[in-house]
């Protein structure tokens, strides 16, 4: 079964409730959108991620009231290097959406969403722990899984699988 090609044209994706809402609010916030394998990804400008999340959570037609996951992908040697990925779920509408924020490799930082979904607390700490992405406004940004005094961020692509010896 061949895969249908991904749709990346914003015009064609306007009908999706999340994209429509975001575009009506602030067209600058939406950098790019992609519909691939029945899943929708929206690239959000890093300055607007907090407001975009509030907007999607409080959207009366399709409230994304459940934060499934926060994770990160390291695209070394590309710049911007990091992509922080948020998976939102609307329990009432049975709809998922993926938000992405691109971050530079130098000192990656993005606004925390813990005040919107307290669930982000551990998820963001995990991303900070393993990728070194800082979340500004997080109430307790400390290492979660690795020891407190660990050096380096293990899931970065320039960190060897066997670790440093």
């Amino acid at each position, binding site marked *: *079964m*061949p*895969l249908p090609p*991904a749709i990346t044209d914003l015009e064609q994706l306007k009908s999706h409730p999340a994209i429509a809402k975001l575009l009506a609010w602030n067209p600058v916030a939406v950098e790019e959108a992609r519909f*691939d*394998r*029945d*899943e929708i*990804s929206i690239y959000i400008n890093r300055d607007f991620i907090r407001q975009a999340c509030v907007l999607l959570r409080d959207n009366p037609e399709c409230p994304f*009231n*459940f*934060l*499934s*996951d926060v*994770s990160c*992908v*390291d695209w070394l040697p590309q710049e911007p290097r990091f992509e922080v*990925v948020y*998976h939102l*779920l609307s*329990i009432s509408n*049975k709809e*998922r959406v*993926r938000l992405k924020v691109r971050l530079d490799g130098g000192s990656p930082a993005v606004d925390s969403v*813990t*005040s919107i*979904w*307290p*669930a*982000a*607390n*551990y*998820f963001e700490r*995990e991303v900070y722990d*393993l990728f070194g992405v800082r979340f500004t406004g997080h*109430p*307790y940004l400390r*290492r*979660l*899984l*690795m*020891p407190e005094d660990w050096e380096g961020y*293990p*899931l970065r692509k320039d*960190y060897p*699988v066997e670790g440093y010896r």
Partner: protein
Amino acid sequence: MAHLTPMPVLEPVEDRTMILNMGPQHPSTHGVLRLILEIDGETVVRMMPDIGYLHTGIEKTCEAKFYQQVVPLTDRIDYLCPLTNNLCYCLAVEKLLGLEIPPKAQWMRVLLNELTRINSHLVWLGTHALDIGAMSVFLYCFREREDILRLFEMVSGQRMMTSYFRIGGLALEPPIGFFERARDFANRFPSKVDEYENLLTGNPIWMMRTKGVAKITAEDALALGASGPTLRGSGVDFDLRRDMPYSSYERFKFKVPTSTDGDVFARYMCRVQELRESIAIVQQALDGMPEGAIKADAPKVVLPDREKMKTQMEALIYHFKIITEGFAVPAGEVYQAVESPRGEMGYYVVSDGTAKPYRVHMRAACLANLQTLPMMCEGRLIADVVAAIGSIDIVLGEIDR
């Protein structure tokens, strides 16, 4: 929502309180969970879970393996429901590849997943009751669990780390006699659930230890990312099997038990009723098991049968190529979620077009569920902490990965 992100406990804030360390080596923390409690007498004022003692870097290891080599790693994440992990990972990669799975393989996956759910809930019930002081339930639960492990051993050769699902279908045909034994178990099991309920559900001591203990409201549970029975015990009627079906779950009839009380007893009732629903799904899967292939027709991805490999040149070439250089997966990304015994288990797999996954991330249901623990326990007695830990059914292997 400031009350949902409590301040960490590092030193006592008042003269009358003290810090108590619980775990990581503590029999009722279900693994290596460490809790730092600030207590005032017997009352918990604040709590901070400390995790990471089982961190093995599975996500990093996945990036160095071929797609098919990741399957055995997924077993080790949540060691109480290995087949659910296998399924979630396989579904994610199959979605990336655009593979279609034959009906028999899908039904076998449903059948085994429900057996896994029963297996996991039995361990939970036994240990949870043991923590609270009902010793004998443990023995009853492990008696039935043994039967399920034997069934797993029949299909996969392994009791716990099964790795039975493959990208594109199943590893092997189920052996002769498997369906008979599974049916025998399914017929016997409902009366065993009655036995557990006789021991616990109406038991006054059990009720006192669980009713009204460790309450959480639906809003708080949602905000903290709780899922599965922890969320349904608070009254949110959501189950991925029914609401966002995968692997042909839409063809099965079952109820989703919920309760609005949000306490330990509510979560207990949800899981016990789930045992009954799961065995009903097992019955339906056995009744309607389709005939046909157990692997998708995709020679570049699915290993050929042993017989073909020894007689056909092409099959041998494909076998050699898949084993030595893997198979390339078209670039893209997928988030696949399934309803594990503990809640929403999700696999986020990113491919860059090569034979090794660029990134595999597991959304651990327990990690999010654990965040509800401080909410549940603050203001309650230390003895209730043990009941609360049992009621959210955590597996530290999944939390730490």
